[in-house]
């Protein structure tokens, strides 16, 4: 039975319209996966020696101390990006297949997710190094197994948490809060958790209770999914309470207002769109990695600009990336009403501008790191407002991913509007300013580099009408292909 389900899975993968269309996307994904595998590998191999060289304590002790953050950030990233196991369940409900089999299949499928196997590239070399450096091999491998099981617990917890934003907010606050407290030296959570991770090593039998807990979370996630397997439960369309949006405010902007009002409704009333906004908000904190000196490689100015672009451009990337896919469900309507592409794009553009401005204002708390740091946030904002907010619409014309706003047919619906594909598409929008900045910085110094970004932004601003014209002609050219992709 599992074999049949597996072959269905393969078919749905290879026959999906996105698979057929985006060859370059797949290549990018492969490269990104390789990149992350390399990072994990080098962390696994290098962690021990880096810590030894930095002379901040016995390497194994230090690793045990900070493992809590490894696990903490793991669950946050999982929540943000790991796709839920999507199985098109409804047609299977009426067939002679046990519901439990379908659910088990979906759950086991998750083990093949990048978010699970990638950790092995960290843990295995790390354990080898530990053994080479004189730790007893049996207990080391059991320790390693315990850590991996804890990561699997994260995996299944994420399944449960994924349905509830509130739970995630609590976890994220705990992780961010405790790292903040530790950074400012108020409270150090790691002194307590270190004891726990040390114990995993010293008392190898602890792997047994951890295995039990893993099985329990598996079972909890299993029964959660199992309970959704009814037409009136997880597969049901939920009758939501309507959220009203004032008509008067938008009516003064004419046709643009009409479309804008729909876009606001789109964001407020659809979970996937809401999550894009949420992801955008999350990126405000992304700069912490760069501006606090937490990661040594990110110390250079060019990387700080990179951070600046991401901090203020979260919404731009997570939402703008998918224009016009957000409207995929009713694209034929838009194509037959008298709306011009310019009006349509202007509405999305306005939305992106408003959100980028809002995030810039929210990011002003980076001022506590000083004006110099904040200037990168501002530079990023300027570049996003003038150039990226237009370019992002350009990229959208080629994405053609159908977004199912309700995903009512899939019980375990793919709720993550923001995933690694989105991230990949952002690269071109970032490479250009970084190259300009890096070049000027190298040749003429940091001030000239900053000015160059401002100048490029101004040029971009004046090129806007021309850019819009180009983008519109692309949308027009792609119209039939886009309609076709959205239909299937």
């Amino acid at each position, binding site marked *: 039975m599992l074999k049949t389900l597996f072959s269905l899975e393969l078919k749905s993968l290879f026959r999906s319209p996105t698979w057929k269309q985006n060859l370059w996307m797949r290549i990018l994904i492969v490269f990104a996966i390789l990149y992350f595998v390399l990072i994990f590998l080098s962390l696994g191999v290098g962690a021990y020696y880096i810590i030894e060289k930095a002379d901040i304590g016995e390497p194994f002790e230090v690793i045990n101390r900070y493992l809590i953050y490894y696990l903490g950030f793991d669950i946050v990233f999982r929540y943000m990006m790991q796709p839920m196991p999507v199985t098109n369940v409804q047609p299977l409900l009426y067939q002679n297949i046990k519901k439990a089999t379908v659910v088990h299949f979906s759950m086991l499928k998750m083990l093949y997710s990048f978010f699970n196997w990638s950790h092995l590239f960290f843990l295995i070399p790390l354990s080898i190094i530990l053994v080479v450096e004189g730790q007893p091999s049996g207990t080391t491998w059991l320790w390693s197994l315990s850590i991996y099981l804890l990561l699997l617990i994260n995996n299944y917890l994420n399944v449960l948490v994924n349905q509830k934003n509130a739970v995630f907010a609590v976890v994220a606050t705990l992780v961010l809060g405790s790292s903040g407290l530790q950074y400012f030296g108020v409270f150090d959570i790691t002194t307590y958790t270190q004891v726990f991770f040390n114990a995993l090593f010293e008392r190898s039998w602890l792997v047994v209770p951890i295995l039990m807990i893993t099985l329990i979370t598996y079972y909890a996630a299993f029964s959660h999914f199992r309970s959704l397997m009814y037409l009136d439960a997880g597969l049901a*369309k939920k*009758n*939501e*309470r*309507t959220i009203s*949006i004032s*008509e008067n405010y938008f*009516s003064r902007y004419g*046709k643009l207002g*009409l479309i804008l*009002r*729909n876009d606001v*409704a*789109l964001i407020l*009333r*659809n979970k996937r769109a809401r999550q894009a906004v949420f992801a955008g908000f999350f990126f405000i904190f992304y700069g912490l990695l760069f501006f606090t000196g937490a990661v040594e490689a990110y110390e250079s100015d060019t990387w700080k600009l990179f951070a600046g672009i991401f901090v203020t451009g979260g919404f731009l990337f997570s939402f703008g990336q998918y224009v016009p896919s957000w409207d995929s*469900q*009713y*694209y*034929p*309507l838009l*194509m*037959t*009403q*008298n*709306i*011009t592409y310019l009006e349509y794009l202007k509405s999305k553009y306005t939305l992106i501008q408003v959100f980028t401005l809002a995030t810039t204002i929210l990011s002003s708390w980076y001022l506590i790191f000083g004006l110099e740091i904040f200037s990168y946030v501002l530079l990023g904002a300027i570049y996003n407002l003038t150039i990226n907010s237009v370019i992002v619409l350009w990229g959208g014309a080629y994405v053609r991913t159908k977004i199912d*706003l*309700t995903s009512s047919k899939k019980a375990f619906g793919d709720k993550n509007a923001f995933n690694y594909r989105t991230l990949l598409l952002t690269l071109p929008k970032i490479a250009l300013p970084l190259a300009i900045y890096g070049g000027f910085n190298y040749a003429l110094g940091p001030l000239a580099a900053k000015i160059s970004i401002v100048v490029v932004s101004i040029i971009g601003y004046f090129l806007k009408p021309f850019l819009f014209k180009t983008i519109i002609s692309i949308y027009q050219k792609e119209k*039939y292909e886009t*309609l*076709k992709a*959205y*239909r299937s």
Partner: protein
Amino acid sequence: MINVSNLSKTYKDTTVLSIESLQLSKGEIIGLVGNNGAGKTTFFSLLLDLIKPSTGYIENNEIKVNESEVWKSTTAAFIDESFLIGYLTPEEYFSFIAGLRSVSKVDLELFLERFGTFFNEEILGKNKYIRDLSKGNQKKVGIAAAFIGAPELVILDEPFANLDPRAQMQLQNLLRQINQDLGCSIFVSSHDLLHVSELCQRILILNKGELVKDVTKGELSLDELRSFFMEEIAVTEEEPSTPLSADE
């Protein structure tokens, strides 16, 4: 108002639609019938410039639909759910369409009164998103919205499907009334021969992508219309009947 010339749509080697010449005049109710795969939806999609013709063109008010978008202000359609915005309430959806067609709020309300009994108190004031309505009610919303702003041509794909018997009757009357009052041309497709023969002033029959009959009302009775499809069945069933009889 519609002029079709040399139109065809081909996917790889199969031609799904081929119409040499066809003119539709203003103010008529025109019915399009044919079996599944006859090319009805393909024809509608071509009329709305949702797919590209392989050869030929369609003119709407003497403007080729794939070259200019002027026709969008005088033409409306309801083909399927992809013409509805699921996360809006019916009222919001109507006012969105009305805004695009420059119909004032007051006029919109006046216009919607006409649909009072058709809506059967299940559409307006329910505070529900369109995606939470039943299939039949979604259809009602789409059909009503297509007529907002009195477009010259309204295209409806299978408007009677998914409606309950009472709503089907009401819809027939409504379409007739709107056609008389507003002078819209209405182009409907249907599998229900009875509805088509009662409602339409002109009937087109498509078969395997070709226009095989083009008759005005009175020229062809319901029985004749039926017998056309009966002949089809007779032709297709003759062939397998031979091996069966050989068994005896």
